[in-house]
């Protein structure tokens, strides 16, 4: 069994699900974050015999870790609407417990998983923009200067930051286990993207560029949750091969 895990409104993932099914990955199960939250049975075990996960969804489907052959994981958050009626203290506690639980059972799924969960995010290495700039520089990509100060404006949720103004045209490439799909790149940028994915420990990574202070290919951001449609059919071919275990990492 292969799995596509995503929010029910993740159009990009729904598109990928159809494309992967058309490539013969069967059985291929589409499981939304909301369905997972309402699962009727959870059983996650750790011990001397290894690690296991067994889930029965409300619609009767069963997800058993040992039967999973490959996972496209686009989960962003844990749905906790079913806790709305709980008292606030219990709700906060349960929400944190669920987030911790999801990280663990997703990590327990056998490889390949694009992307594996980390403490930074259920679908991979979500990093602050300062870290992306730093890593991009280490990867040899032309990165803009980055500055942060204690006098920066903070919104209610945090600090809004972007490397380029909203609306700036960007070119996106998607790196999947060392294979790069998207806008054709100069050789050194191509190599830099692979190094960035490697340094950031991200199997599937979207990398954006814009004309800017560091030249035509100025690093403009990276995400473990890119719009897969930007990679087109070629990207789906690669993802299908990775999930089948046919494609080795491109060295």
């Amino acid at each position, binding site marked *: 069994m292969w799995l596509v895990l995503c929010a029910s409104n993740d159009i990009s993932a729904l598109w990928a699900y159809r494309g992967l099914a058309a490539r013969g990955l069967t059985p291929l199960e589409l499981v939304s974050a909301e369905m997972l939250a309402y*699962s009727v*049975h*959870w*059983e*996650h*075990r*750790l*011990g*001397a015999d290894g*690690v296991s996960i067994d889930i029965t969804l409300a619609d009767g489907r069963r997800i058993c870790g040992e039967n999973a052959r490959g996972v496209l994981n686009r989960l962003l958050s844990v749905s906790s609407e*079913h*806790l709305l009626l*709980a008292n606030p203290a219990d709700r906060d*506690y*349960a929400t*944190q*417990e*669920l*987030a*911790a*639980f999801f*990280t*663990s*059972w997703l*990590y*327990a799924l056998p490889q390949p998983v694009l992307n594996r*969960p*980390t*403490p*930074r995010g259920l679908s991979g290495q979500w990093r*602050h923009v*300062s*870290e992306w*700039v*730093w890593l991009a*520089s*280490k990867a040899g990509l032309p*990165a803009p*200067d*980055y*500055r*942060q*100060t*204690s*006098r*920066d*404006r*903070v919104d*209610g949720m*945090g*600090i809004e930051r972007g490397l380029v103004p909203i609306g700036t045209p960007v070119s996106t490439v998607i790196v999947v286990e060392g294979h790069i799909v998207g806008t054709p790149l100069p050789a050194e940028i191509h190599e830099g993207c692979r190094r960035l994915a490697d340094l950031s420990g991200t199997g599937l990574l979207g990398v954006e560029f814009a004309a800017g202070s560091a030249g035509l290919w100025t690093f403009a951001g990276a995400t473990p949750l890119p719009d897969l449609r930007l990679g087109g059919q070629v990207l789906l071919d690669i993802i299908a091969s990775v999930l089948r275990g046919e494609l080795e990492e491109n060295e």
Partner: protein
Amino acid sequence: MILLCGIPSETPLAMVREQLNRLNVPYVMFNQRKFASTEMDFEISRGRVTGEIQLENRSYRLEDFCGVYTRLMDDRLLPELKDEPANSPKRYYCRALHDTLIHWFEVAPTRVVNRTVPMGSNFSKPYQSQLIREQGFAVPETLITNDPDFVREFLKQHKRVIYKSISGIRSIVQTLEEGDLKRLDAIRWCPTQFQQFVEGTNVRVHTVDTKVFATAVSTDTTDYRYAYRQGGETELKAIELPDELASRCIGLSRALGLVFAGIDLKITPDEQVFCFEVNPCPAFSYYEANTGQPIARALVGYLAGTG
């Protein structure tokens, strides 16, 4: 120069300061409670990280710090913000300052104990247990479920079972008793963790880079951290670990990206070693105060690059 971050009176931080004073190692302190008079900035240009922090009207170049020891409390809970509304400029400034500091920790080309991100594994205990397993430690038999029948079966199998939180929220480890079984239906709302109780000696291992300090903890309670609340007693004693186990503890800390870690082991009567958890921000002072182990001194040595 070393930078300390946190609340000066907090015991672990105070112990590190005491050692810094004793060893004549220069340091400055970012006192969170004085956030309003602190300013900071950093810049990344062509991969080089530079910046400045202003403390008590004196400026320090960030690149001059050879080490940083941080024990930041949640800045939203600082007493100075108690009466501030959610959208007050003071609150926003405090958040922006801490945001700047925390993100500098991640990219700072210096010794940071510990960087923020590696500390994240502890936010999900079973996730961290999987990482611990990968490093060759035994972990207790664990069941996380929302099915009461599975819990009853697990209890029948292991006879003595404990339950505890799996997230970063601290909970007191409790033994699953007959009375708890009557309210097991509550777990249907949220999968809950149950663990085989492992008989043996609790051992807390502090690793500081390549140094290892092991403390055996004897207790008559389920969770020795709360022995006094449960009317029990706890005794701490410094011990030496076999070289192989000490190396494995260092390897585990490194695998988690931690320079300084508090590793909770239990060694069974047949000498099997179980690892329960790795604390990425250990309050080592309790152990040092009770055993005299020079943990703060080792920390200072690491931060100063002399240890």
